[in-house]
């Protein structure tokens, strides 16, 4: 009897936030999927997808988005992994300084970071004042600036995730492997990498999803064609009021993330059942 009461109470308490989730996330996603198959008279049509998948400009936007996302993700993972390993395995003064500072950028409003970034690196920015504008490579308003900005945004969080995974590896595992004469590279590939592999996947998921649909950074840094899909989607929605076309871009972004997100959720469920 008590168990039944508890069941009802439990569901009743979860309902407000679960319904908000349904109304604010699940339902809009369904509406936009439906909208993506409709023309202005609300009739069924494939036109939106035909446009998005064949229009030369849109195709270029896709390629560009994938390029930026792949380069950024690879760099973020490599740099963050190196940084996390450094913080985990070094006790020096330098690593203590970094471990106190590295998470601060996570709390800086994104748009402020971008503004600071532009002011720092533009042709007459702070760096140019030091090295002279004639020596300053012009990179802030193109793909190089965008990738660097993505690094700024994603390295702190990714490092935090990876550091917590590396900290969970007991020092004794590594010590004993070293005692039996294993080389550093062997230890890395046989112990450290496999033990942090799951977290690496989670980190990749977050980085991928954050970058592939990003808006503010590409909007302010690199707005000209080819555009990132996030910018192109916002323009179709806010500037051209093409609900169908912007919905179909959104759906395609959802599908891209669904593949990656599936790996993440599976991973989380697996870990939950272990604990």
């Amino acid at each position, binding site marked *: 009897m008590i168990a039944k009461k508890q069941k009802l109470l439990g569901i009743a308490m979860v309902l407000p936030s679960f319904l908000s989730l349904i109304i604010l996330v699940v339902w809009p996603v369904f509406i936009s999927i439906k909208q993506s198959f409709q023309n202005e008279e609300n009739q069924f049509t494939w036109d939106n997808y035909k446009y998005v998948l064949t229009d030369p400009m849109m195709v270029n936007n896709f390629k560009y988005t994938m390029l930026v996302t792949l380069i950024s993700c690879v760099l973020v993972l490599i740099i963050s992994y190196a940084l996390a390993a450094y913080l985990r395995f070094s006790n020096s003064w330098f690593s203590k300084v970094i471990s106190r500072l590295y998470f601060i950028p996570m709390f800086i409003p994104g748009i402020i970071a971008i503004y600071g970034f532009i002011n720092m690196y533009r042709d007459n920015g702070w760096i140019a004042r030091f090295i002279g504008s004639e020596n300053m490579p012009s990179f802030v308003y193109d793909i190089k600036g965008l990738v660097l900005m993505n690094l700024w945004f994603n390295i702190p969080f990714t490092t935090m995730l990876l550091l917590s995974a590396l900290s969970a590896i007991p020092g004794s595992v590594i010590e004993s492997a070293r005692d039996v004469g294993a080389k550093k590279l062997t230890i890395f590939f046989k112990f450290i990498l496999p033990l942090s592999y799951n977290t690496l996947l989670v980190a990749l998921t977050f980085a991928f*999803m954050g970058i592939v649909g990003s808006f503010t950074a590409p909007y302010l840094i690199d707005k000209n064609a080819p555009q990132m899909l996030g910018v192109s989607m916002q323009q179709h929605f806010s500037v051209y009021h093409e609900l169908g076309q912007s919905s179909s871009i959104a759906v395609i972004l959802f599908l891209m993330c669904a593949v990656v997100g599936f790996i993440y959720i599976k991973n989380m469920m697996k870990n939950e059942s272990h604990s």
Partner: protein
Amino acid sequence: MWYFKALPRGKIIEFFIVAVFCLFFFGPLLNLVLLAFSGEWRYPSKLPSSWSLDWWKYVFGNDQIVHSILLSFSIATIVTIVSIIICIPAAYAFARLQFPLRRVFLFSFLLTNAFPKMGLYVAVGVMFYKFGLMNTFVGVVLIHVINTLMYMTWIPSAAFKNVQKSQEEAARDSGASPLRVFWHITLPIAAPGIIVASIFTFLSSLDEAQGTLLVGIPDFQTMPVIMYSIIADYPANAGAVFSIILTLPTIVLLLAARKFLGSDAIAGGFQMK
């Protein structure tokens, strides 16, 4: 440790790493601080030649900007309250009660992070068009609540889990009602987790730019939305002052809550156990 001590030029390399790290992550921020307090800073001087607060007067003399500050804070406050009311009961239920589909409900909150944000906002925008919620206060609050559902449910839930059941039971045994136990025993012990989640919620609402830009234009120009036009139209000094105003609440709140904050608490929002 041995891993790096093995390097002969280790210290130099380490110094190089720290220098690049600080320059890359904090150089742009330092540059904004200098810009905000500079009086005259002609190209190509490396540092401002005079300091002043003129740009602060300029920013606080601009009605549109002042209005956006007030608007941002009122929206963030309301979003935090709404999100506490919606999510805390669920957080408690996930921590303490056994009910069917508990895991499905729990993990459904990952959906808020499973879609690219701008895609989700466009989807919500399409829905708002149909219900006349574009360019309304309610619409802006709802867009902000999306981002808070997961933190507000998961972080407090982890906090509730950490409350020892024996303490609650002892209070029940001495005759206290369940609500009294919750109010006097459970809530105070779980408070740090709830405070951390509330601060995250408040800050995420304060900093939310893209969703507000999409559904709140033209009447609901919060600070980050104003920032888009400041970047395009205002001198860099004014933009720098405004950047500091926008970042200040984050710094103040995080310092105030420092003792509750650790990477565990933050990571707790992403790795529910």
